């Protein structure tokens, strides 16, 4: 009402983003008005392209602009290890580490007893099909170390173990740079359990 229609529409669009309230939306909208036209066009194109061109890889479920994704196409990667993660962002985090050379499987969520999200609501059936088709020797369960992540890992390991595939869980314990004296008992006991020979 106070703004011309194009800018009020822009403000409305910004408020749809997470963490953006009405005041921030106004600030962003006015910032866009002061941007160069080329930059605005590039920004708009990036938004549209991200939505239009990205899809989920039909093999691993990771976001990609080509199907299958570059990781699944890469023949130099170890085909016998699959790392199961909850979210595409977790794949990026693992890739930044540069030490894992196997493949991934993205679940797009986790089993959550509290929210009534069961195994059928996440990408588990595709994982089971992959294990039947591909020659997998190890499945690394890299779900988050919380109730949902643990429940998901337990469920998958129960399903997969009878087939004889080695099922492992990522280690839990103290973060690098953390302080032992400030660690809680759950973290410490997990760290102690997962100790290894030097």
């Amino acid at each position, binding site marked *: 009402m106070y703004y011309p229609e194009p800018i009020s529409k822009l403000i409305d669009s910004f408020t749809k983003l997470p963490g953006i309230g009405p005041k921030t939306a106004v600030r962003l909208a006015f910032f866009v008005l002061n941007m160069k036209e080329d930059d605005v066009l590039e920004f708009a194109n990036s938004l549209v392209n991200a939505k239009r061109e990205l899809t989920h890889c039909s093999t691993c479920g990771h976001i990609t602009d080509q199907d299958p994704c570059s990781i699944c196409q890469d023949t130099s990667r170890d085909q016998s290890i699959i790392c199961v993660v909850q979210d595409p962002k977790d794949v990026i985090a693992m890739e930044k580490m540069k030490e894992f050379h196997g493949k991934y499987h993205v679940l797009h969520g986790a*089993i959550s007893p509290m929210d009534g*999200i*069961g195994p059928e609501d996440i990408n588990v059936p595709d994982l089971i099909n992959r294990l039947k088709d591909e020659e997998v020797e190890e499945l690394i369960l890299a779900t988050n170390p919380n*109730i949902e992540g643990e*429940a998901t890992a337990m469920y998958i390991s*129960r399903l997969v173990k009878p087939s004889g595939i080695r099922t492992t869980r990522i280690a839990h314990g103290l973060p690098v740079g953390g302080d032992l004296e400030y660690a809680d*008992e759950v973290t410490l006991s997990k760290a102690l359990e997962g100790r290894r020979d030097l």
Partner: protein
Amino acid sequence: MLEKIKGLVLKTQDYGETHKIVTIYSKKIGKFSAIARGAKKTKSRMAAVTQPFIYAEFFVYIQTGLSTIQQGEIIHSFRSIREDIIKTAYAAYIVELTDKLSDDKDPDTFIFEQLFETMKWIEKNDDVNIPTMMYELKLYGKGGFAPTLDRCSNCGGNTPPFVFSIAEGGILCHHCRSMDREAIQLSELLAKLLRIFATVNLQRVGNISVKKENQQLLRQLLDAYYDYYGGYYIKSKKFLKQIDLLK
């Protein structure tokens, strides 16, 4: 006002990038929600203490609106529950039921103790059906829809054999059983068991042994009763049913 409160974490909800809103059930002030700032960060000292099922001592800045958790110290983590998917499912069910059927800041020592004891039972034992039902029956009273189990819900009489009528809200005696044609036939033992379940503290129970078919009948009866009177959809029940298929 800063208070030291011991309580069990019922649920958590993400708030913003790094915060969590934690719902806690305590003996002192009942159910309350508080924000734990930065609890989602990897190195946060509150990351572990704000996980569901954790029993801890919280230092909470109590306010009229949303309170703030300043610190927390784990007393009992119920670790073996979170490491077993079936136990997790049962614990999630009783915790969600507690959250739905209890009001904010309405302390109830008995319910708190029963919740804690049921969690301890789930942690130590594999057969958790009966303690779960015992806790449910006690919680129905908190929700205001406890079934009448000590006498006929119509005439107050005590003449066996009894039937359980969902529509009449409890047991019916031999004379009143015709009031509800859909009432479920109860053996004398089952009627007695239901009465015990609704009143006896779990601490006083050593070992529970109920036949599988009787357990199933009681489960169906409680499910139908809750569906009729409960009013809230319990999300973890769906999960519990899915997981039961795993057994």
